[in-house]
């Protein structure tokens, strides 16, 4: 250690400094309890006269090498921090399963049955406008993605379903989706009459949806 002369000069002072092991304990306790990083000057200030916080820090730092926490330098101050490789322990993952909203599932169904389909077409079919959040959510879930642009005025983007979508619903292909006839045969079209009122509307969370005229999209 090259600090021997240093110690000697300090040895001249009236009170002998505590042993280095003690000083290390002190630095450890102060760094632990402090709400913010502590500078060497402050450490020396708080420790008994004659202590050498900088040297104690060297030992303490070595002691924590490879441990779950490290002594790290933050600017010109020091702090105890979690070892970077254990950062994942500081996260608590809670998995929540939520039911997809009606607007989202309808939009998804339209994309699946009519892909590639533009937003305007989805809105025409649903009879209500599609909120940005709904499309974003489906994109984020990676159940839909952008398809080719439609070669019509405005070159609107289209949406198509993804392999992740097919995977989730156990489909090999979007064409495997049951057709209207099968839906009817399965009793899925036996819904009650609508009195001309849109079914969705009220429960949809995108409440600003505008009801629009129905088009002839199903004449394919």
């Amino acid at each position, binding site marked *: 250690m090259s600090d021997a002369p240093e110690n000697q000069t300090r040895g001249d002072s009236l009170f002998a400094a505590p042993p280095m092991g003690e000083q290390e304990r002190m630095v450890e*306790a102060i760094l*632990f*309890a*402090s*709400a*913010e990083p502590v500078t060497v000057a402050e450490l020396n200030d708080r420790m008994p006269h004659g202590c050498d916080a900088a040297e104690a820090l060297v030992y303490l730092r070595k002691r924590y090498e490879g441990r779950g926490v490290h002594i790290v330098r933050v600017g010109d101050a020091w*702090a*105890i*921090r*979690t070892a970077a490789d254990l950062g994942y322990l*500081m*996260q*608590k*993952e*809670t*998995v*929540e*399963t*939520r*039911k*997809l909203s*009606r607007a*989202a*599932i*309808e939009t*998804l*169904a*339209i994309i*699946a*049955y009519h892909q590639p389909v533009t937003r305007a077409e989805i809105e025409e*079919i*649903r*009879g209500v406008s599609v909120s940005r959040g709904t499309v974003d*959510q489906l994109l984020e*879930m990676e159940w839909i993605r952008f398809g080719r642009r439609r070669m019509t005025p405005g070159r609107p983007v289209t949406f198509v379903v993804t392999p992740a979508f097919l995977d*989730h*619903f*156990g*489909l090999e292909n979007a064409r495997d*989706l*049951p057709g*209207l006839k099968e*839906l009817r045969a*399965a009793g*899925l*079209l036996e*819904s009650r*009459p*609508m*009195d*001309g009122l*849109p*079914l*969705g509307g009220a429960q949809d969370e995108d409440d600003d949806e505008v009801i629009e*005229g*129905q088009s*002839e999209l*199903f004449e394919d």
Partner: protein
Amino acid sequence: MADLFEEDKRNAVEERLAAEALIVDVDGFEGPLDVLLMLSRTQKVDLRKISVLHLAEQYLSFVEKAKTLRIELAADYLVMAAWLAFLKSRLLLPPDPEEEGPSGEELAAHLAFQLERLQAMRDAAAQLMARDQMGRDFFARGLPEDVTRVRKVTWSATLLDLMQAYARIRTKDEFRPFVLDRDNVFTMEQALERMRKMVGFAGTWTDLVSYLPQGWEKDPVRRRSATAATFAASLELAKEGKVEIRQSDTFAPIQLRRRERGHE
């Protein structure tokens, strides 16, 4: 000997100070039991060997002193005084075999127990407070790292949900006849009106198609609608006896002509 004398003298001083303190400072006591405990300390014995009789006398004189100093004592101090006067008489008089309930000795023993227990709790409290305390002697982590809660939402939807959603939309479509696009519909009323004007000129068999309105022949949707309306109108006219209709074969052109009244 000298030590004993010294101690007695000191005790006397302490006792006097204590007595003064309690009289001057009666509000500082936390009830009669607190006073009794304080007084019992002047007996300088183990609380287990305390003379309850003596204690009762001490307490009664405390109450007397308080009265002479016109210190208003709370009711429970007076209730205690009355009870201790009763206890004193019990302890002094020979036990009455007729008397029910606990004997004077039992009551005294219980009072002594209560004093001892209160003292024990005070000692325990003092020991507790003398312990190293967090935030004073030892410390928790000053810079805790929050556990970030990563909320992962998985959305659930089944194929059935998907199909039902689609079915719902399609059903909605089927049940919306009232908002049909009128531009592409030629109604029977329109056809009838048009044909009434035209049949007067149809002396010979003419194809029904020629009665279709202008601009409705090309677009299949409009054509279908116009054809159906015109056909229905011609049936109506036939019913009225205005026209005759014929079709030579299945899917052959439908022809009609004006019905001459005189032919009948």
